[in-house]
């Protein structure tokens, strides 16, 4: 299994508060991704990174920001959490030298915004 951890695994927060989720990898993979998974929508890409300090928006990026100051860490920040951001968040990594498109997922963070 790829070495990917996410923290926290569970979080309950109030509307309007800032929240940061962390993804940490030990595989030295170049690409990192944040997805959210919601019933009826499947997995949707929020932001991705193609290198240190290189990030770009995905399909559902509004209300989220990311940072990647080191290869191993990719942070997802909700500046002011809303109830619509209640979801399960998954981090994924990919090695550009590997087979095309293959991504390896972390265990997820379940976020509840009350």
């Amino acid at each position: 299994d790829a070495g990917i951890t996410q923290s926290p695994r569970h979080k309950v927060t109030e509307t309007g508060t800032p929240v940061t989720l962390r993804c940490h990898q030990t595989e030295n993979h170049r690409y990192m991704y944040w997805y959210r998974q919601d019933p009826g929508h499947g997995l949707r890409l929020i932001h991705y990174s193609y290198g240190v300090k290189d990030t770009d928006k995905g399909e559902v990026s509004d209300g989220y920001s990311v940072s990647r100051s080191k290869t191993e860490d990719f942070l997802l920040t909700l500046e002011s959490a809303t109830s619509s951001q209640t979801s399960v968040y998954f981090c994924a990594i990919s090695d550009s030298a590997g087979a095309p498109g293959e991504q390896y997922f972390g265990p997820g963070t379940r976020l509840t915004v009350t």
Partner: protein
Amino acid sequence: TQLLEQSPQFLSIQEGENLTVYCNSSSVFSSLQWYRQEPGEGPVLLVTVVTGGEVKKLKRLTFQFGDARKDSSLHITAAQPGDTGLYLCAGERGGADGLTFGKGTHLIIQP
């Protein structure tokens, strides 16, 4: 816009039966992956198909990529309770911008 349509969304069958899950799109993908996800865990990669018409086998699971690289299927022979889970297909269109996922097929194999 849902680029990848999976069917069926839900499937409950008896142990020992065969089943097929479909993943269809109007878009061409450079590769397509199948993942399996269990409750409370992240998706786990099962297989990647790249070439149109490609067939890959993983024990009792057979994966096929359509000739035009727009669709794929997953066939399970003699399903077992351990096959229960959420099966996701995901297409890559090239570049670093991640995968496009189908909504998944919830599969339950009853003993």
